């Protein structure tokens, strides 16, 4: 399958990128890893087809991962899934993000796919979204008029849609340090691990003496955007966590989900899998905390 024709632009600075994006608007698309954008272009599913493809990889300062005990984790938009998954600090302190990045497609795609692209593509199945949402991550969005910070959970407005405006770029992802006695888990159900998730579940949980003091649960592929299930979260917070409660939380999470039928799976099947994965993710989280992991 050939790509449609386009003009290829490579801004060398972020300001140059802003003016290109402002000038061409919907006729321009940002190219990072290309593993989503070029597929959509090959499928001619972006209509109108972009006349300009703007490669942002020549812009300095967008490709880094840094960890600081005070500030937490900062990831440049162009960091690849393979880099994120492989970094020791990520594996140690942000295990759910490492799991999610490591479960995205195949090694050769992970070497290309970027975290910024994964978020801006705004797929309902976005692999890194549940882990980032439950880790209370924010994104730094930059534009000519300055920068703003948006929580990842507020980033998505619909399938393929985000709050990022014309002329803006997602520059960086910031993940705060986890609380003591807490951990994160990401689990995915797909026909193959390399396939898009039929359901993805991210859980973060903080425990104090057998009592859950904080929890976040987020789902992918279970609604029009990656989403939090707050009723389920409320149910577990402040409680001693036992088998019965876990089952109830998983059931409520499933009730809150809003999946649809598609060729990958029926909505009902997805709801069943939400129950299984949320339950399993909480149990794995408790186990990690008991074992004294992060």
């Amino acid at each position, binding site marked *: *399958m*050939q*790509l*449609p*024709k*386009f*003009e*290829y632009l490579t801004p060398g600075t972020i300001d140059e990128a802003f003016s290109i994006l402002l000038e061409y608007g919907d006729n321009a698309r940002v*190219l990072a890893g*290309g*593993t989503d954008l*070029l*597929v959509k272009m*090959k*499928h*001619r*599913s*972006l*209509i*109108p*087809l972009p006349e300009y*493809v703007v*490669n942002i*990889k020549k812009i300095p300062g967008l490709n880094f991962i840094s960890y600081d005990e005070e500030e937490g984790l900062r990831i440049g938009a162009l960091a690849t899934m*393979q880099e994120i998954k492989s970094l020791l600090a990520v594996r140690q302190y942000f295990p759910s993000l490492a799991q999610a990045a490591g479960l995205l*497609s*195949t*090694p*050769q*795609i992970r*070497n*290309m796919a970027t975290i910024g692209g994964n978020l801006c593509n705004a797929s309902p199945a976005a692999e890194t979204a549940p882990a980032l949402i439950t880790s209370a991550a924010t994104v730094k969005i930059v534009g000519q008029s300055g920068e703003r910070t948006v929580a990842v959970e507020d980033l998505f407005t619909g399938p393929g849609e985000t709050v990022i405006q014309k002329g803006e770029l997602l520059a960086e992802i910031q993940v705060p340090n986890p609380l003591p006695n807490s951990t994160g888990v990401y689990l*995915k*159900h*797909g*026909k*193959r*691990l*390399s*396939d*898009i998730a039929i359901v993805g579940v991210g859980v973060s949980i903080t425990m104090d003496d057998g009592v859950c003091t904080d929890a976040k649960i987020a789902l992918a592929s279970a609604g029009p955007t990656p989403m939090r299930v707050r009723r389920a979260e409320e149910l577990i917070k402040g409680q001693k966590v036992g088998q019965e409660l876990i089952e109830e939380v998983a059931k409520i999470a499933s009730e809150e989900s809003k999946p649809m039928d*598609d*060729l*990958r*799976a*029926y909505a009902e*099947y997805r709801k069943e899998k939400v129950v299984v994965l949320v339950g399993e993710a909480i149990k794995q989280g408790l186990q990690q905390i008991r074992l004294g992991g992060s």
Partner: protein
Amino acid sequence: MKQTIRLTINGGPYEFAVEPNQTLMEILRSEMKYGGTKEGCSVGKCGTCAVIMNGKTVTSCLLLAVEADGKNILTTEGLSGEAEFHPFHEAFTPEGVMRATSDTPGMKSRGEYFTFCHLCCGHCSIKVGVEDGKVVDIAPDMESGFPNELCPLKKSRLSVPDILTHPDRLQYPLKRVGERGEGKWQRISWDEALDTITSRFTEIKEQHGPDYVAMCLGEPKGMEFAFGQRFASAFGTNNVFTPGWSCGPPNASPSINTCGWNMVVDETHRPNLLVVWGLNINHMSWGVRRETLVEGFKEGMKLIVVDPRRIDLADIADMWIKIRPGGDGALAMGLLKVVIEEKLYDEDTVKNWTVGFDQLAEHMKTFSLEDVERVTLVPRQQIIAFARLYATTKPAAIQWGNAVDQNPNQYQNNRATAILRGITGNLNTKGGDVFLTNAPFTRPGRFYFPAGAKSRSTANSLGQEYKIAMNSAYVPAPAMIRSLLEGEPYKLKAAWVILSDPILSYPDADATFEAFKQLEFLVVNELFMTPTAALADIVLPVAWGMEHNELGYWPGWQKQIRAHPKIVDAPGECWPDTKIVNEVAKKMGLGEYFWEDDEEALDYMLEPSGMDFDEFKQKKRQLVPTHGYRKHHYGTPSGKIEIYSEKLEKMGYAPMPTWELVTALPEMTEEFPLLLSNFKEEAYVLSGYKHVASLRSIRPQPTVELNPETAEKLGLREGDWVNIETKNGKISQQLYFTPELHPKVALASFGWWFPEDGPETQYGWKRANLNVLTEHENTSKECGSPWCRGIPCRISKAEGPNG
């Protein structure tokens, strides 16, 4: 605007001027002419195009060539000098990411089984990974030494686990309870299903005669087709409809009536020049294998591709002949003209081993190369170069494809090609087009027509005017449509469809749909609900290839037999097609021609080998034919190459291909100014598997290709949904620009329906189905094909996917 890139590929420095929309994969094919780095899915799922860039594996199909500027690229060609697998290939999927399960490896009981892929007629040898009773992965079989290079897209790996466990799979016999086609079904028992079928078929046979029941069979996978043919013989019906009109006989029969045998490209000793004519052999194997291509290229084999479409082999070919769809016979006649007039033929063969050469040479004077250029749209210099290269490179072979078979001029086209192969001295020589001697197993024909059963008789058959079809034990589909819609010469009452979806695969889909609605009783064996199954009275759920023991003997021209052992259980109450036919036959009192258990037939098939199925499965798995290379051994009445065939003349057919016959093509008009042909997408198998998500995400929509200049004149933009209209009907597909395509040609995709549209529309069979555009009139007199290639059409903007 082109940009210059400089990069290192496998250690060497290169510089190319590339367009921004070219991927690195395209450069590696078209500039480096690499045969091993291939386009598979083209969307980053299959790994076939993976390369190592600056030490990291990436998918070159999703990497813009401009981004490879300054990079160091290592490809499979740089890794391995052998046409074998390098450890790197294995390492693509080191974490089991392609396994179709969410379980961690090692958690469940696991087994590995060797068999042959069941999807297309390439039948690659595969290793099947099974966990907990489910197929989870398919890998090439690296241990047995059988051809094992999977299609670039790795279609089996991406679809077989999904097909076998698909939630929409039929699991129980169903009977219709609503109006025909309304989609209301009731689950019934096998006993009820068999009783109903037996009593209805028997009733019709007694009241009207056996010919009022038709068998509709598709491409053989295992033994189902053979069981269907045998049932027809035992039951007594002459009306067996098969894809023979579009595949197989249109090429085999002209070959047999020219030189006495059907021929295939010699893959044991490879040709020095291979012509790939009308098929996308790298993606869909039914002849020359990918291994043969790779080996051949290493030995310096030249390649000529004849195709209107830029298939991937066109990129690495020495010559790409961009032919007018349907112009194949004219091109073959043009090649003959050059070969004969420049005396490039093999003199000994022509002098001592042909009948009618002088008449053909005389006939060549009646047309000019300008005429050939006008009809074929191929520049005459290219025709001359093609003819010279083909005639002077020895040995040379021609791999023909279905595209050449699917027109009313099919027979004479293929006669012309057969003569060309013959007079250039390429028949039955090492590396040429060769005749194979069967592996030792029961001939399919003997299986179809058991001793004592009724043999086919032209007297009562539908479509008896198609004499070649009659000799090949099939009736062409158009005869079924005429029977049901016009009652000519009589109206069928019932049909049993196995391995087939006629609403998608028969010409003139609207007429086929109406015709099938006329049936009083329709039985369909299927894996899933399909547009045709939606019209049935009884739908029977079938087991797939890996769910029962079977033998594969197709494609027939390969003359081999393979063991496809049972690997997993079928879901629900699915039965193998062979068991269904066997049980119906027994119930009908036809048991003498069948077996107590259908698997006993496998031993019967293997009798000449001296093995039973179990032994064959354990010890051999596959028996292959032998080559005799008996030069000038022609099985024709005269013992020579019959350029002029008295046999065909006596049958009422043209004794010699003529310019007039091969150029009787439908012309473009003001109303229909473009020529439509079609292609099959690499992701699917004919009309099958549109509901398998892993394949559908690779090719989500039907697409029609146009030259951008043509499209722009029509006011169409890339990505638009467009209507494609012929005098027969209208469909919608999504528009792709293909700059390499001839401006007068449109190429649409074949076999589309939309399972997600649901039963109300019989799964959207009307929307994009290519056969809505074909007709059932004006067919080949020999084999029964209507125009499928080069149909006058027009294209206009559609409102959306629904036209």
